[in-house]
């Protein structure tokens, strides 16, 4: 947009946009608060049994106590997130490695296909009790469960990313007499990165779910066991406070993965292309001086 347009026509539209946005935020807030008030009154009027359906005010209080009063949640949060991170890294490495290996080898791919179909149809989280029985209680079996539930998405996505390389680009590389390694590093992997990243996002979500299920079964520590214990004791307000904590974590993970995606697959977004383009330009001009 030219400067002139910005000054002549831009101004009123910005103000109009602001007021529209403010109005929308206001409506959002009104709906949200109305829902909370409805819930709170419903509970106080005895329409909802507060024993099972805690009041928003009670959840808020529990939230405060868990984080800043007793600070009870921090330890469990640390345990769960540690497991998630380790399991996710393990699962990612395994998934991407296997995916690339299988994708590159048509024979292996052919013979592995039925097993992949079977694995895809199995609710993989169902192996949790089995793994705990085999590996015993403790962190090892929990991490094993997470690795198992989260390796699949990166595996499948890497596999399809590697297999679905544009044939004409492949021909281009062959015409330049590129080695297999060069084809992998300069064509196949960069081309597959956006798909792999999508797989990693799914893997992260799966890892969090896997950790929770492992903790439900082992019931020793972590957010999962905390939720279970609170629910058993009918301390529903605290249980809900834990759930909303998970919402926040889930949101942070989502945003974090999105950010990583934009950084790594920079050629898929305008800001990323500008950032890397500027950097390369600077590097070249410095080289020119040096």
């Amino acid at each position, binding site marked *: 947009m030219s400067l002139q347009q910005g000054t002549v026509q831009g101004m009123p539209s910005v103000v109009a946009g602001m007021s529209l946005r403010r109005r*929308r935020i206001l*409506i*959002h807030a009104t*709906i949200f608060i109305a829902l909370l008030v409805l819930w709170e009154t419903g509970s106080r009027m005895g329409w909802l049994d507060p024993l*099972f359906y805690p009041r928003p005010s009670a959840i808020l209080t529990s939230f405060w106590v868990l984080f800043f009063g007793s600070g009870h949640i921090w330890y469990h949060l640390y345990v769960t997130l540690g497991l998630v991170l380790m399991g996710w890294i393990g699962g990612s490495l395994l998934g991407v490695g296997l995916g690339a290996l299988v994708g590159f080898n048509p024979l292996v791919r052919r*013979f592995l296909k*039925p097993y992949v*179909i*079977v694995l*895809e*149809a*199995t*609710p993989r*989280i*169902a*192996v*949790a*009790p*089995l793994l*705990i*029985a*085999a*590996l015993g209680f403790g962190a090892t079996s929990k991490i094993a469960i997470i690795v198992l539930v989260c390796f699949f998405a990166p595996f499948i996505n890497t596999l399809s990313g590697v297999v679905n390389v544009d044939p004409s680009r492949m021909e281009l590389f062959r015409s330049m007499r590129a080695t297999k390694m060069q084809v992998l590093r300069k064509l196949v992997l960069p081309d597959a990165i956006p798909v792999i990243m999508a797989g990693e996002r799914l893997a992260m*979500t799966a890892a*969090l*779910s896997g950790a*929770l*299920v492992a903790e*439900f*079964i082992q019931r020793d520590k972590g*957010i*999962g066991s905390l*939720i*279970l214990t*609170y*629910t*058993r004791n*009918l301390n*529903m307000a605290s*249980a*809900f406070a*834990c*759930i*909303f904590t*998970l*919402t926040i974590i*889930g*949101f942070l*993970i*989502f945003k974090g993965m999105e950010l990583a995606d934009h950084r790594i697959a920079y050629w898929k977004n305008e800001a990323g292309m500008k950032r890397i383009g500027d950097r390369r330009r600077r590097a070249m001009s410095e080289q020119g001086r040096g």
Partner: protein
Amino acid sequence: MRKPSSYQIEIALIRFVPHLLLFLALLALWEIAVLTGFITSIIIPRPSAIIGAIVELYVTKGTIYSHFFITLTEAVVGFAIGAIVAVTLAVWSSLSEGFKRYVSPYAIVLNVTPGIALTPIIIAWFGYGMGSKIALAAVICFFPIFVNTLTGLLHRDEDREELFRSVGATKYQIFLKLRVPAALPLLFAGFKIGLTTALIGAVVAEFAQATSGVGVLMSRFSFQLNMAASLATLLSMTVIGLLLFYAMEILDDRIVFWRRDTRMATVSRARARAWLAKSGE
């Protein structure tokens, strides 16, 4: 449907035999590894032991069937409820900008929260029976279906919409004749993910607290360290998963026929026959 010729059967056999051979070889290798003590049999049982457990569960005792059908029912009913709610909300959101704007924040919150975390709470609300399993299945399969349906319906094919407007179509006609059919492939992709997710919900809820279902059987065998029976049960979950997946695949194949070459050819022939029969009258 045409009957496959003997030639086609032969080809299928030739394709199938190497897979079978590999599978048997793997089983034999595994059996030997356990027998020679290379793998501890407590953690990983022999294939023959697993086969023995399968025979016991499915044939001699037949314990699996009641559990099998309970879990299958929970997953299917949960899926149906989740899908109905998801598709309704998605259709409504696609028709009304306002509705979409004020509903989407809640959908996002629901998406980033691991639905599995609700397991204990849902059991507290709906009890130890099938109700809580169905509820969890419905909750966690809602989002993938909602988001796929909405994405499909919101996709704007400007060229085709212009065509519809140029022949004087109403908004309602554009929705029904263009946007809905165009959204069907994504809708079915969502249904497939949703079914798998619903099964996970049912099984996890059974782990947490239940008296019947394959999840219960699975955790019972595991805690008895009866690994062979555990694996045999796991296999039954795979069977449920495959059943659900292929049932949806068949529906997908029938309804979204224009995405499959062979189905398309069949439909094309059927419509040609119908036309000929009518003009013959």
